[in-house]
C-alpha cells in the first residue's frame, strides 16, 4: 500500500494521469483568474449544468457521453455570448437562467447513476482519446490566456477602452467563454462538472485576496489549483475514494484559511 505512492514505483499510466490532472489544474487556475476578476464567480456552477442534457443526448445516440457534454458546453458558451450581446444584460443572469433550464432538461433525460458520475466525476482509467483530449484542451486554454492576457486585461477594465485599443471585444468575449466552457469540459471525466467549477473559481478567489498585480494573481492561482489537485488526489488514494470531492475540499479549506488574513489596502 505504502509503495504505491513511492515515486519510483508509480506506473507510467498513473504518472500520465497525474501530469494530465496537473495540466488541467493549470488551465483552471489561469482561466479562473480572469473569471474571478470579471465577476463571473457564480457563473461557473450553473454553466456546468448544461453538460447534463448533453450527456443524456449522447447516451440516447449511443455516443461517448463526454463528447455530448463538451458539445453542449461549447454551444452554451455561444448562446450566452449571443444573448448577452443582443440584450446587454449581465452574463451572470443569462447563465443562471439558461442553465437552470438545462439542469431540468438534463435530469429528465439522464439516469441517476450517470448523473452522479457527470456531476462528481468517475474514477477509472482514461481512454487514450480522453487523455489526448485532456492534454490538447488544457494546452489550448493555457495558450489562450497567456497569449491574450493583455487584451483580457484591457477588456476587463473597460470595453470602450479595449475598442479604441484595437481589441475586437466581441470576438475576445466569445473566445473567453469558449475557453471557460472547455475548461469545465476538461474536468468532466476527472472531477465531474460541478467540482470543476470549484477548481476554476476557488484557487483564483484565494489568489485575489493576496495579489496586488496580475503576475502574482496568475501564479498564485495556478499554484493553489495544482497544489489542491495533487493533495486531493493523494488523500483520495489513501481513502480509496474518487478524487474530485477531496480536491475541492482541499481548495475550500485553503480558501477559509485565507480568510484569516486581513487584506491591507
Amino acid at each position, binding site marked *: 500500500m505504502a509503495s504505491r505512492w513511492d515515486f519510483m514505483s508509480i506506473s507510467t499510466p498513473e504518472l500520465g494521469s497525474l501530469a494530465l490532472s496537473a495540466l488541467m489544474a493549470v488551465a483552471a487556475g489561469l482561466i479562473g483568474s480572469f473569471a474571478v476578476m470579471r465577476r463571473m464567480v457564480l457563473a461557473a456552477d450553473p454553466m456546468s449544468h448544461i453538460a447534463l442534457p448533453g450527456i443524456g443526448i449522447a447516451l440516447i445516440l449511443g455516443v461517448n457521453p463526454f463528447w455530448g457534454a463538451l458539445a453542449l458546453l461549447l454551444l452554451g458558451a455561444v448562446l450566452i455570448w449571443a444573448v448577452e450581446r443582443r440584450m446587454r444584460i449581465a452574463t451572470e443572469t443569462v447563465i443562471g437562467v439558461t442553465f437552470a433550464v438545462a439542469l431540468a432538461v438534463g435530469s429528465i433525460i439522464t439516469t441517476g447513476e450517470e448523473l452522479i458520475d457527470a456531476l462528481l466525476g468517475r474514477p477509472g482509467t482514461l481512454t487514450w482519446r480522453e487523455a489526448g483530449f485532456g492534454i490538447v484542451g488544457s494546452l489550448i486554454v493555457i495558450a489562450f490566456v497567456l497569449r491574450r492576457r493583455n487584451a483580457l486585461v484591457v477588456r476587463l477594465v473597460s470595453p470602450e477602452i479595449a475598442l479604441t485599443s484595437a481589441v475586437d471585444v466581441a470576438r475576445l468575449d466569445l473566445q473567453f467563454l469558449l475557453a471557460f466552457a472547455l475548461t469545465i469540459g476538461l474536468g468532466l471525466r476527472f472531477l465531474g462538472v460541478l467540482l470543476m467549477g470549484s477548481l476554476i473559481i476557488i484557487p483564483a478567489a484565494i489568489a485575489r485576496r493576496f*495579489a496586488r498585480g496580475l503576475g502574482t*494573481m496568475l501564479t498564485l492561482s495556478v499554484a493553489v489549483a495544482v497544489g489542491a489537485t495533487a493533495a486531493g488526489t493523494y488523500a483520495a488514494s489513501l481513502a480509496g475514494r474518487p478524487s474530485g470531492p477531496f480536491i475541492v475540499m482541499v481548495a475550500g479549506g485553503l480558501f477559509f484559511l485565507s480568510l484569516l488574513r486581513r487584506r491591507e489596502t
Partner: protein
Amino acid sequence: MGVRLGGTDVIQDVTFAVPRATCLAVIGPNGAGKTVLLRALIGALPHTGTVAWAADTVLGYVPQKLDIERDLPLNGHDFLRARAALAGSSGSMQAEALRSVGLAEKVLSTPIGNMSGGQFQRLLIAFALLGRPNVLLLDEPAAGVDAPGQAQLNEVIHGLQETRAMTVLLVSHDLSVVYRYADYVLCLGQHGACFGPPRSALTPETLYEVYGQPVGFHVHQHS
C-alpha cells in the same frame, strides 16, 4: 448624426466639425447624451447620419470615471504594459507618456482600484497616449477629482493639445474650463444643440435653452 437607444432618440440631428489640433468642449445637462455621443464617435454604439474622421485619425479614449473594485489585482504596470504590448510601443514611450501626464513611476505599483481619482485619470490618459492618438476623447476627466487635481488635469490636457498638436474632444461640466481652453463648444440640450466658438455660442440665452433654467456664469477675462 443621431443615436437611438432602446427606442428613444438620445441624440438627434447633431452637426458639428472639429478642425485639427483644436479643442471641442461638449456640454449639457445630465442625460443630454454627452457620453453617448463620445461612445458613438469611437464606434461603441451604432448611430445614424455620418461621422467622418480624417484618414490618418488615431483615436484615444478616456472614459468617464470607471468603477474599479478596490481589490482588483491589477496595478498600473499591468495596465500600461497591456496597452504597450497591444500597440507595440516601447518602454521609452511609456516613460514619455507618464511624463506628459505628470504621473510618478512609483505610483504604477499601486493596484488601480487603490489609486486616487487624479492618479487614475492620469493613468487613463497615459494609457491612451501609448496608442499614439492624434485625437483624444475625454469624458469628464476631472469628475471625482479634488479642485487642485482638476486644475492640474486641465493643464495636462491643454498641454497635450499644444505640444502634440492633438485634437481634443472634451465632455465637461465646468463652464470656466470651456471658456478657457475650448476653441469650439457643442451644447446638447433638451431643445436641440448649439455649436460654435464659446463666446458666441454660449450666451445666457443659449445656456438657458440647454439647461432649461437660468445658469449664472461670470466670464473671466483671461489674458
